[in-house]
C-alpha cells in the first residue's frame, strides 16, 4: 500500500508543482498572485480534449499545441485584462478571481457535465511490486521533469530568459537598460498559462475533465508555491511533491475524509515557522 500511495502522491504532487509554477512565474515578475491559475489549468484540459477529439495527435505534439495555444491566450489576456489590473495588488487579486469565475462559466456553457478524456497516454497498467499504475502517471512525472529542465535552461541560457529575470529583479532598472518590460510581463503570463494548461492535459486522461476541476487544484498549487517559497522555482516543485505525497499518505493511513485538510495544515505550520517558505527568500523592501 505504501508504494501505491507514494507514487500516486508523487504524480499528483507533480501536477500541483507545475500549476504552482504558474503562480511562481507571475509572482517573481510582478509580486502579485494570479488566482485564475487553477482555472487556466482547467481550460488547458478542455483545450486538449477539444483538440484530441478532432485530430488524432501523438502525445508530444498534443502537449506542444496546447502549450502554444495557452501561451497565446495568456499573452492576449495580459494585454486585455491583466495589464489594466496590476497597478494595484488588491485590484489584481480580485480581478484574477473574477477572471477565474468567467473562465469556469464559459467552459460550463459548453460542457455542463463531466466528460471522459481520450486515453492519449495509452491505457496500460504498469505493476511495480504490489502497486499498479496507469501509464499516464509516468507521463505526468516525466513531463514535469522535462518542463522544469526546459524552464531552467530558458531562464539561465537564453536572452529572453535573462530579460525576464532582470525584470523580476528590478523592473525599473531593467527598463532603463533596454529591456522591454511590458513584453517581458506578457511573456511571463504566456509561460504561466502554458505550463498550467499542459498540466491540465497531463491529468485529463487520469480523471474526467469538468469545469470545476481547477478550483481545488488551484488552491493546492498555490499552497505548494507558498510552502516552497513563492519566489523560488525549486521551492514550488518541492512544495508540490511534499503536499501531493503527504495528503495521499494521510488519506490512506489516517482518514480519507481529512485528505484535503492535510495540505492546508502543512501550509499553516509552514507559514508560522517560515513565512517566506522552505526555499524562499525575503525580498527586501526598497525605500
Amino acid at each position, binding site marked *: *500500500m505504501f508504494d501505491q*500511495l507514494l507514487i*500516486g502522491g508523487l504524480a499528483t504532487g507533480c501536477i500541483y508543482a507545475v500549476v504552482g509554477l504558474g503562480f511562481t512565474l507571475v509572482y517573481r515578475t510582478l509580486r502579485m498572485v494570479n488566482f485564475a491559475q487553477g482555472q487556466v489549468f482547467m481550460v488547458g484540459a478542455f483545450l486538449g480534449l477539444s483538440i484530441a477529439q478532432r485530430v488524432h495527435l501523438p502525445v508530444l505534439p498534443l502537449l506542444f499545441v496546447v502549450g502554444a495555444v495557452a501561451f497565446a491566450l495568456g499573452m492576449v489576456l495580459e494585454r486585455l485584462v491583466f495589464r489594466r489590473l496590476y497597478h494595484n495588488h488588491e485590484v489584481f487579486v480580485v480581478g484574477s478571481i473574477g477572471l477565474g469565475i468567467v473562465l469556469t462559466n464559459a467552459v460550463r456553457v459548453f460542457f455542463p457535465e463531466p466528460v*471522459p478524456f481520450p486515453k492519449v497516454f495509452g491505457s496500460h497498467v504498469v505493476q511495480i511490486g504490489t502497486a499498479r499504475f496507469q501509464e499516464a502517471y509516468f507521463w505526468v512525472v516525466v513531463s514535469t521533469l522535462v518542463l522544469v529542465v526546459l524552464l531552467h535552461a530558458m531562464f539561465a541560457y537564453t536572452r529572453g530568459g535573462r530579460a525576464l529575470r532582470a525584470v523580476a529583479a528590478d523592473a525599473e532598472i531593467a527598463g532603463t537598460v533596454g529591456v522591454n518590460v511590458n513584453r517581458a510581463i506578457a511573456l511571463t503570463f504566456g509561460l504561466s498559462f502554458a505550463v498550467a494548461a499542459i498540466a491540465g492535459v497531463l491529468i485529463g486522461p487520469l480523471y474526467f475533465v469538468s469545469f470545476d476541476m481547477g478550483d481545488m487544484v488551484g488552491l493546492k498549487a498555490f499552497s505548494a508555491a507558498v510552502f516552497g517559497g513563492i519566489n523560488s522555482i525549486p521551492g514550488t516543485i518541492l512544495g508540490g511533491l511534499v503536499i501531493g505525497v503527504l495528503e495521499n499518505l494521510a488519506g*490512506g493511513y489516517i482518514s*480519507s475524509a481529512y485528505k484535503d485538510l492535510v495540505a492546508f495544515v502543512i501550509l499553516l505550520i509552514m507559514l508560522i515557522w517560515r513565512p517566506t517558505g522552505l526555499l524562499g527568500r525575503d525580498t527586501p523592501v526598497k525605500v
Partner: protein
Amino acid sequence: MKMQKLVRAVGVAGCIAMAIPAVAQDIKLGVVAGMSGPGTSYGIGIKQGAEMAVKEINAAGGVKGRKIALVIVDDASNPAQSVTSMERLVNEPVDLVVGGWGSSQVLANMDVAERAGLPYIVVGATNPKITTDKNKWTFRVIFTDAVQAEQIADAAVKRLGMKRIAVIHDANDYGVGNRDVFLASLKKIGVEPVAVVSYQSADKDFTAQLSRIREANPDGVAIFGTIPAAPAIMNQARDLGIKARFIGTGGLANENLMTLAPKASEGTVLTTYFHEDADAQAKAWADRYVKEFSGSSQPPRPVLAAWEYRAIKYIAAPCLESSGTNKDKLRQCIASWKGNLFSVPGEAYFDKTGQLIQQSVLVEVGKGAFQAFKGK
C-alpha cells in the same frame, strides 16, 4: 408560465366551444417542480409525466365528466422559491398537488400544503424526514434512501453471495445516510464490512481510499455516491486491480455512469426508481412516453416522469373519482390506497406516515445499459 396560460386558455376555449350551460367545473391539479436551475432535467420529466397522464384521462372523458386542468409552477429548484410556488397553488386554488423535486424544496414547501390542508403527493424527493408521523396531508410515492440501502444490503448477501463487502461513500447527507442504513442492515444479516472509507463530493483521485479497500480484499464494493465520483471510483478501482463487483443505490441510477465508466461499470447491481424492463406494462408505457416527447427541446427523462404519471393516473384520479374534490375525503382516500403499479413488483400501499411501501427495482449494468437484474 406559458404552459399554465396555455392550459387555462385551452380549458376556457373548451368550455365555450361546448357551450353546455351546466358544465361541471374543471378539477385543478397543481404540479410544482424545478423546471429551471439544477433540477431542470428532473423537473422536465415530472412535467411531461403530468401532461401525459392528464391528456389520457381527459381523452377518456375525464373524472366523472369533469376535465382535469393542470396548473404547473416552476420553483427554480430553490427551496425559498418553492414555498412561494406552493402558496400560488394554494391560492389558485388547486384541488391537490402531485409533484415536488429535491428534498430541500419539498421539506420547505410541504409545510405550506400542511397548513392549508391541501393533499400533496411527492414524487421526486427521497429524504426520510419528509414522511414522518407529523405530516397529515403529504404523501410520497418514491421510496426513501433508507429503503434502497436496506434492499441492496439484502441482495448483496443473499442474491449475489457477497461475504467480504467494502463500502466507499460520499461524506454528504446522501452518502452517510445510505452508509448508516446499509451497515445496520448488514449487521442484521450477520455480515461485517471489511472496510469503510469516505470521500468528498469534489474529489478526483480515489487511490488512497481504494488502496485501503484493496488491502481488505473484498468480493463486493458498495458505492454510495453520485456522478461523476462514482464512475471515477469504478475506473480507478479496476486500474488498481480490484476485481470485486460494484453495488449501489439510486445515486448511480444515471445513464452517464456508463458513459464515464464504460468498462468498469459493467456488472454493477443497483436499486432504481423505475425500469422499463421490469414488466410488459412498464415497457409499453416507456415506449409511448419516449415516442410522445422525443424531438421536443427537452429529451424524455423516464425515471421521474413514470412516478408522476403513475401517481396521477393510478392514485390521484381514482381517488378524485370516488371522493370528489372534498380535500379531507381525498386525503383519506389516498391514505388508504393500495394497488398495483407498473414496474413495481407486488402490491403497494401507504403506511401511517404517508410513505408508499413497495419493493424497489434491482437493475444490473450490462452492455452499456441498465438491464433488469436477472440474478437468483
